[in-house]
């Protein structure tokens, strides 16, 4: 209870699902052999933290930011450039963190002070513009960022796949640097999610919710809403940048496609909405569903597309082509905003409560 900051999942089914997800993630290196399963699990961890930090903004303050991938990208690039420039040692990792996190926080502060003063809708548009400018900048400053190719780098000795920590004959499993990296990603992501849970259940988090519900009233009660919103924005940016660092460490690469592209922003939005806005737990569920679907449904779409092509159906092969994955995602997105605005978590939490609410209207 202490760990969850007094905000348990509040639904038996939800608790069960969360426990299964977390156990499965923790045991992935031993349960599911192969590089793909481990990659998927690491990605779920990173995105769960990233989406949870976005939920702090979207779900708890009701502001839509399109710059979240920018902070994610700052983290990724900071660590990548540091490890690429300095060499594969821990000093470089520390440099990346020391440079990346404050940079993300400062930028979030600047954007927040600048655009959160006016209407929330301005914030959405301005973050979109700033993020796209940043993306262009990152791909153009190729002496620093490697341009479209991005930066590949080597990890410190301890985290490399070749480093065997516990040899195979002891447990029947080999624990190498790769698995250590995975657990590093897992643990830090879990810590960040727990910290976010702590933030949203603190008095500060309550003020954020008050601002979401009615900004004027919150202001009238004496809360400096701009300060609170900017603070939330900076916190979210910090967690996003940390998630970016983890992602870069896992991939040993940072590039525009993996850390800055607009489609990642859409993925995040979709995960928040599917999982359930304003719940934090929704981030874990949303990220799991989405990334599993992305990795395993896409190949299914390829099969379906081929079958439709062989059956001579018009248009369907094009629509079902794996590259058109985003199309179905977009449809799913619209449908979930429209039909399930509370997401999976909201549904599970008050499947019964909603009926009561409906009766009282």
């Amino acid at each position, binding site marked *: 209870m202490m760990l969850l900051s007094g905000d348990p999942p509040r639904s038996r089914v939800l608790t069960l699902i969360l426990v299964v997800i977390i156990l499965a993630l923790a045991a992935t290196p031993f349960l599911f052999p192969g590089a793909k399963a481990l990659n998927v699990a690491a990605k779920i961890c990173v995105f769960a933290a990233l989406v949870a930090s976005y939920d702090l903004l979207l779900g708890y303050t009701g502001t839509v930011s399109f710059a979240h991938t920018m902070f994610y990208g700052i983290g990724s690039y900071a660590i990548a450039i540091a490890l690429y420039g300095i060499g594969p040692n821990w000093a470089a990792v520390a440099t990346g963190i020391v440079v990346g996190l404050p940079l993300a926080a400062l930028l979030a502060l600047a954007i927040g002070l600048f655009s959160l*003063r006016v209407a929330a809708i301005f914030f959405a548009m*301005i973050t979109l*513009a700033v993020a796209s400018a940043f993306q262009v900048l990152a791909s153009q400053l190729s002496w620093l960022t490697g341009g479209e190719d991005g930066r590949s780098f080597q990890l410190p000795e301890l985290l490399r796949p070749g480093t065997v920590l516990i040899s195979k004959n002891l447990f029947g499993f080999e624990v190498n640097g790769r698995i250590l990296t995975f657990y590093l990603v897992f643990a830090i992501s879990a810590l960040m999610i727990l910290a976010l849970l702590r933030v949203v259940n603190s008095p500060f988090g309550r003020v954020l919710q008050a601002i979401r519900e009615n900004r004027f009233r919150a202001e009238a009660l004496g809360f400096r809403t701009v300060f609170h919103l900017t603070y939330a924005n900076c916190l979210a940016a910090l967690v996003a940048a940390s998630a970016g660092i983890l992602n870069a460490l896992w991939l040993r690469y940072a590039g525009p496609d993996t850390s800055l592209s607009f489609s990642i922003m*859409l993925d995040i939005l979709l995960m928040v909405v599917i999982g359930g806005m304003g719940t934090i737990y929704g981030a874990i569920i949303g990220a799991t569903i989405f990334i599993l679907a992305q990795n395993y449904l896409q190949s299914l779409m390829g099969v379906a597309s081929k079958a439709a092509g062989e059956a001579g159906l018009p248009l369907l092969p094009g629509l079902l082509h794996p*590259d058109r994955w985003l199309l179905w*995602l*977009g*449809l799913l997105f*619209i449908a979930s905003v429209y039909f399930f605005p509370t997401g999976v978590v909201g549904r599970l939490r008050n499947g019964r409560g909603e009926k009561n609410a409906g009766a009282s209207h």
Partner: protein
Amino acid sequence: MTDLAASDPLPKPKRDLAPILLPIALALIMIPLVGSPSTWLTLTAASLAMGMMIFIMASGLTLVFGLMDVLNFGHGAFIAVGAYVATLVFAPFAASVQADSLWVNLAVLAPAALLSMAVSGALGLVVERVLILPVYGQHLKQILMTTGGLIVAEQTLYALWGPQIIPMPLPASLRGSFILGDVAIAKYRVLAMLIGLAVFIAIQLVLNRTKLGLLIRAGVENREMVEALGYRIRRLFLGVFMTGSALAGLGGVMWALYREQVHASMSDELTVLIFVVVIIGGLGSIGGCFIGALLVAMVANYGGFLVPKLALVSNILLMVAVLMWRPRGLYAVTSR
């Protein structure tokens, strides 16, 4: 105290001239910086043409927001759809497009533009009914829904036309430039300027000289009051939304011809551009949108000439500068 006789005209509202002077001042400052007057003229013409095209695309967005408080993040999709529809007309009449006669060219260009506007407008109807109607008054959901709409539209374009860039050659008679002394002004830019100016004047006339425009302006100021007076603001809004979408389609055709290519990702790029313009101008203001479009185009052109590296972030810098001066845009709509 002077009494107003009944026949006297009403006192005019104060005109806010500073924003209008801004692009003019910017252009004048650039004369010594650019150096040669002929280059300056070419750049200025290019900025005006580009600005007009951006204005055509952005005008619908700002009106829709002003009237109904709806921010359409999928506005860029109408632009791309317009451009793609035009390629449908251009492809079978490739010979007429390449014929060296202005009238034959225009005979293809005009129907293509009209068809694009019709399709974008019809798509606007569908989007308004399906995506926006269920989420009136909820900004958060509007942003999410229309962003979803943008993805779906873009991906559908990819599915129908494929991911490759479709070339869209300029009609033969619009290629090349008018040469005046040592100043070269591309012919197509002159056409774009004329169309843009025509659209701007038409919008201004409709808004300021007709009953329809009166209602739209009244709706921007106070929606409930217009409704209370018995006008169906919903239908009015639908009309504005469709017109805005159609204008976006027209802008898409013009932009595609300007770039001489069509690609589904243009909806993303242009969404950002028109957002910057609409923010600079002040959400809901047509005049502000016009000036914002000109400013963005000028900064892009002059900036690209003087400091090419700066052009990447010039839009953001411009936006920051304008918002420092006027936090709600050049012309803030009073009711918001």
